[in-house]
């Protein structure tokens, strides 16, 4: 019948870019172009140590971004991950520093608190029907105050490399013959692979997207929507906890009161990488590539003489463009 030919031609009509993953592919090219551009413009940029420091800088943003992809796919958002990250790290670090607990315990506690705040966010959104923006803005404020309150306003230095318990810093970076090897990147790739599988091949992922596509229809299909909706935020909290570990391992001291704005780098990365703010569309590989656009802007622009203020302005414009592309795509789809 007529339909068969239509669907078949639709299948073969995919462009080269689409077959390579669409927006992801374009963004990957942009990352490469940006890298070449900064390398060409600045001799300081094209050094191994710069690459290592870009990667160092990317870990916690990437982890937050992988996590926040899940709430974004449900059509929501989690604004609490930035201040949350600092809060979880402060509490974990405090246990290690002041209460003499092993670093491993501190790490586990850090991640657990992340999960707990994920559950809180999930319940606020899925059970009590708070708008995600509002719910997580509140937990953003709560985590910010709570972290500072627990440590009494002082920065917490997690054990440095070489110190007792400093081993955890080598999760992300090991030294071989005086050179830093950024093995953290491998962990990120592994986690992206795992979460990509979760998103595309498990019920959890399928329902995350389904909620973002049409929540009521998903509910009427007999899916336990509340549970999976909460789980999206739990995953986000878990990854915020992991991001807290990455942050603690890369930076010498964790300062209370900081962290606001981190979430924007992560959410921005996800959106640049093709995750739609209206839900259902996007995946974690795209998110990771998008994160590198943000990281390259942050680390690359100073090398060509632009100040921090400029970074923010330019990052803002990049986000506007990314969101416009998303809107344009949706208009095209609905207006076909």
């Amino acid at each position: 019948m007529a339909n068969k030919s239509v669907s078949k031609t639709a299948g073969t009509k995919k462009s080269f870019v689409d077959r390579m993953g669409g927006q992801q592919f374009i963004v990957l090219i942009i990352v490469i172009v940006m890298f070449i551009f900064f390398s060409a413009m600045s001799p300081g940029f094209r050094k191994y140590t710069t690459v290592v420091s870009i990667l160092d800088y990317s870990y916690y943003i990437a982890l937050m971004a992988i996590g926040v992809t899940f709430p974004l796919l449900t059509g929501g958002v989690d604004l609490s991950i930035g201040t949350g990250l600092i809060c979880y790290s402060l509490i974990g670090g405090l246990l290690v520093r002041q209460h003499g607990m092993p670093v491993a315990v501190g790490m586990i506690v850090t991640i657990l608190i992340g999960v707990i705040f994920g559950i809180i966010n999930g319940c606020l959104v899925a059970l009590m029907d708070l708008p995600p923006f509002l719910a997580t803005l509140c937990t953003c404020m709560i985590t910010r105050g709570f972290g500072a309150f627990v440590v009494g306003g002082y920065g917490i230095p997690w054990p440095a490399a070489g110190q007792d318990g400093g081993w955890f810093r080598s999760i992300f970076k090991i030294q071989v013959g005086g050179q830093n090897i950024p093995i953290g990147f491998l962990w990120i790739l592994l986690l992206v692979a795992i979460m990509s599988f979760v998103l595309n091949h498990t019920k959890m992922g399928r329902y995350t997207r389904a909620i973002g596509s049409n929540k009521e229809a998903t509910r009427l299909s007999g899916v336990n929507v509340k549970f999976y909706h909460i789980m999206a935020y739990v995953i986000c909290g878990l990854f915020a906890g992991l991001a807290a570990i990455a942050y603690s391992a890369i930076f010498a001291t964790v300062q209370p009161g900081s962290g606001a704005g981190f979430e924007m780098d992560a959410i921005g990365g996800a959106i640049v990488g093709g995750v739609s703010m209206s839900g259902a569309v996007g995946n974690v590989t795209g998110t990771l590539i998008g994160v590198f656009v943000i990281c390259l802007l942050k680390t690359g622009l100073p090398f060509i003489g632009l100040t921090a203020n400029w970074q923010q302005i330019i990052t803002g414009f990049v986000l506007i463009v990314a969101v416009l592309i998303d809107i344009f795509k949706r208009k095209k789809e609905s207006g076909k």
Partner: protein
Amino acid sequence: MGEVILTMKGIDKSFPGVHALDHVDLEVRKGEVHALMGENGAGKSTLMKVLTGIYKKDSGTITYEGKEVEFHNTREAQDAGVVIVHQELNMLGHLTVAQNIFIGREFKKGIRIDDKKMNEEARKLFDRMHIDIDPKETMSKLTVGKQQMCEIAKAISHEAKVIIFDEPSAALTEAEIEELFKIIRDLRDQGLGIVYISHRMDEIKVITDRVTVMRDGAYVGTLITKDCTKDDIINMMVGRVIYEDPKTKNMTPKGSPVVLKVDHLNAGKMVQDVSFELHKGEVLGFSGLMGAGRTETMRALFGADPIESGDIYINGKKVTIKSPQDAVKHGIGYLSEDRKRFGIVVQKSVAENTTMADLDEFSNGPFINKKKEKKVAEKFVESLATKTPSVDQLVVNLSGGNQQKVVIAKWLTRNCDILIFDEPTRGIDVGAKNEIYKLMNRLAAEGKAIIMVSSEMTEILRMSDRIVVMCEGKKTGELDISEATQENIMNMATREIN
């Protein structure tokens, strides 16, 4: 018809302030298509929601396959084989066809979802229905008709024994309805019990074996379809005789001036080289299948979508319409097919909606003259016979027909002389439909020029003085009502033009 599979007896249900179901009976047999009819608010959907466990009944019994049952949620009903195909398509546009059909009960290999098997099973379902849809296609890329088929496939995949169709044809083209009916007959012949809810009288005669009619939450009666006439059913539904005869000749006064002329209008793929004229006091019907470009033409004309080329003349003067503001300035009012999205602000009052398009007229500087607003709104409530307790009532609490009247009042307040009615009676029940028709005729007689886009053939034939037919973005014909028949309109609506 086979043995009885489902009996609902004395079903009673009250909500605070409303006796929604008053001891309603329904009996469905294997191998029959049973129509459930009634005006909007008659309680059809409530009854089905009680059946499938969405609502809990206050009293009464449900007997299914010989046993008394009470389902507590849709899942339980589904598992037992009672499945509902909803009026609003419950589709996840971003997932594939197969993923949609099996959502909530995916096949798994370990923790991994087995998409391959789901695609195969979906294919088998489509084979059983004798239709051809690619299970791997993304749902949003299918036409509404195909999406409906997927909903049915989903219902069948639950091993359904009773399938409830809740206004399945509302958004389908004639051809798609044909296909739907074929599938329904197939299912009936396989011994399933089908409950068919619809407003469309013609369909009831064609597809159903028995009809149960409800009115105001109460059971009115059950008839054998082939032994009764349309009017019998309508009388049972509304308790009064209402149908008026369709127009047989053009009622526009001779020599009536052209108020709107559209010349070679182009706007995207859906509007290609469309030209027509509209006279004062005329109802110009726009007929065609779903996706023929009628709504798109109206949106372009109203400035809601950009015009690529072509001219628009109003009262002989060429005008530029780049936005709805321009259109309204030139006296064009547009009543959208999707009232809730474009026509009214449901959370505002009747009065606020009435003055929405002409607020400047009701303002002193930045302040709105509420008194004047109320007076004008009350005037229209009276002249249009809008049923509302007061003009302060929120529009969300009005019925579809009365909401439509509020939209009409809005454009009349603005003194629009050209009114575009896009599917004016969609989702409006039979009694209220008639009132809208009368109102449109009255407006035309008062000298308003009316364009009516409609997918309902009976409506087109009944209301139009002249008919423009479109197909795939092009105008394929124009008829005077005296020469129009269902057949020649259909021919034009499906004509391939080069």
